[in-house]
């Protein structure tokens, strides 16, 4: 082939690849804009704080208070986070600083598999085991009644789902602590616990926190598994044992069959935007922070 044609082809490919590379940017903007346009009819009728902080959800009467759903999302996610964070940080510490090479080899595929299991499987597991556990055992233990379909149930299922994400990212952060630092502490007579507490965690606490936030952002958007165990009652929850109705579940149950109730579609699109914003803020903060950490390490 002559040189001119090779270079011309080369240029064409450069342009094509460059154009496709803008697709992620284009897609993000398109998702935002489309949802915003679709939510607009309702926003022009009622003020945003009205919609967000009102607890009245009666689509037939034209009342679209999203507060019970937002609160439900926060309750479920917070429960999952409180359950998952300590467990996954301890597991990550064990893997990075205590485990033998052989154990690490065994744990890695286990965590991969946990991360790869579909959410409907977790949901089914939740209905089979955690719902009875909470309804028949935990609720009576605390002297209350619960059907088992509750915030606590969803929290437990979600906690298991975000565990692998937090563990994997944390292990990465923890393993990046220089061995020289640990050896220096050990040579001064520190126990391994002291090394972990005063050296490893001191060096990587913020990274581990970012890993947790990343897990948190996954938990916010989880749909099917939560939907199957959370009860789906559009009332602001009062305790761990009461049912809730998080935003993703609201979308999954009602989208696609929005009937002809005016404003309903807009309300659901508004719910989608709120969910999108919460998730993006959390995941972006964590990602940017982790990226900065790894850049600092490279230097």
């Amino acid at each position, binding site marked *: 082939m002559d040189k001119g044609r090779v270079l011309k082809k080369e240029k064409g*490919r450069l342009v094509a690849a460059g154009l496709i590379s803008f697709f992620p*940017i284009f897609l993000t903007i398109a998702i935002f804009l489309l949802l915003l346009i679709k939510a607009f009819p309702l926003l022009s009728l009622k003020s945003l704080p009205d919609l967000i902080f009102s607890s009245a959800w009666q689509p037939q009467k034209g009342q679209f208070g999203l507060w019970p759903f937002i609160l439900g999302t926060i309750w479920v996610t917070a429960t999952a986070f409180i359950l998952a964070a300590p467990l996954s940080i301890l597991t990550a510490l064990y893997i990075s600083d205590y485990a033998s090479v052989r154990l690490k080899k065994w744990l890695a595929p286990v965590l991969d598999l946990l991360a*790869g299991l579909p959410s409907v499987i977790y949901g*089914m597991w939740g209905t089979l085991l955690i719902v009875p556990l909470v309804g028949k055992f935990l609720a009576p233990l605390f002297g209350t009644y619960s059907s088992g379909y509750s915030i606590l149930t969803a929290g437990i299922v979600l906690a298991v789902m975000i565990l692998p994400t937090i563990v994997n990212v944390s292990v990465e952060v923890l393993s990046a602590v220089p061995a020289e630092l640990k050896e220096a502490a050990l040579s001064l007579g520190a126990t391994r616990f002291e090394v972990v507490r005063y050296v490893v965690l001191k060096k990587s606490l913020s990274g581990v926190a970012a890993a947790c936030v990343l897990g948190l952002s996954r938990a916010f958007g989880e749909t099917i598994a939560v939907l199957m165990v959370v009860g789906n009652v559009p009332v602001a929850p009062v305790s761990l044992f009461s049912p809730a109705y998080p935003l*993703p579940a609201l979308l999954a149950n009602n989208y696609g069959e929005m009937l002809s109730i005016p404003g309903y579609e807009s309300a659901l699109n508004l719910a989608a935007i709120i969910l999108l914003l919460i998730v993006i803020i959390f995941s972006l903060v964590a990602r940017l922070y982790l990226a900065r950490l790894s850049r600092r390490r490279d230097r």
Partner: protein
Amino acid sequence: MRSHQTVVDSRLRRRRTAETVFRFFLLASVILVSLILSIIVVSILWKSLPALKLSMIFKTPGTGYYLGKRGGILNAIVGSIEISFGATLIALMIALPIVIYLNTYLKKKSFLSEIIRLFLDVLWGIPSIVYGVFGFLLMLMCHLRASLLAGMLTIALVELPILSRAMDETIRLVPNELKEASYSLGATRWQTARHVVLRQALPGLITSTLIALGRGLGDGASVLFTAGYTDRITTSLLQPVATLPLAIFFQLNSPFPEVQQRAFASAAILTLLILFISLLTRFLGRKLSRHRIK
């Protein structure tokens, strides 16, 4: 006053206790995590074995299937495979040019590459239910019905950030010297990307693709409004399609115990498929990387 020796002794004892307690907590959490996974897998398989018959795998739902009569979920198995393979192929066609552009045409720390990676991270964070909503709105705009095509495109969007970020990570590990050697022989950027970088990163690319495939196979929220559901095997892009996650979801809600049993069996099939892909990923990752230049 206590002697110096006893003070040292008691302090040492306390430090030892702290170490033991800490070790106990670490071990307890690792054991708990492993226990949870085994409970999940064991309880699903244990529940599903009574319902897992050959007719489940080789038959489509017959008349009265949802009342507990005969039939299987071949429609959902085939549908899931169609939709996830198609989606992965589409995602691959977008993700490959992106990672090639990021890693061979742009400078390592250029502003543009950082921006594109940032937006991929944003997309990575978007929940699949939001993709489902977006896909549904697009579908209405194009006057499309819930179909294999719409579901495929939506899952492709879900897979795109996972796939591109994973491939980006592996391609980034290709040594610069290799590229430079190729350039010094007079190869163009495209030739270098195609014959050196992609070849070198192939094991990583294949495992990334398999990870994305597994994600697509198991994702239910994004196809909830876009793929529809059908009792027949889908043969055209414009027909609705059944998927395994939704088959499990719908059958589990049934009041008939026989149908619920089938939900368990479907879950076993899905779990085994994911397990197979996960093991294949590990196996291929190890096997293919033998001939890599380190």
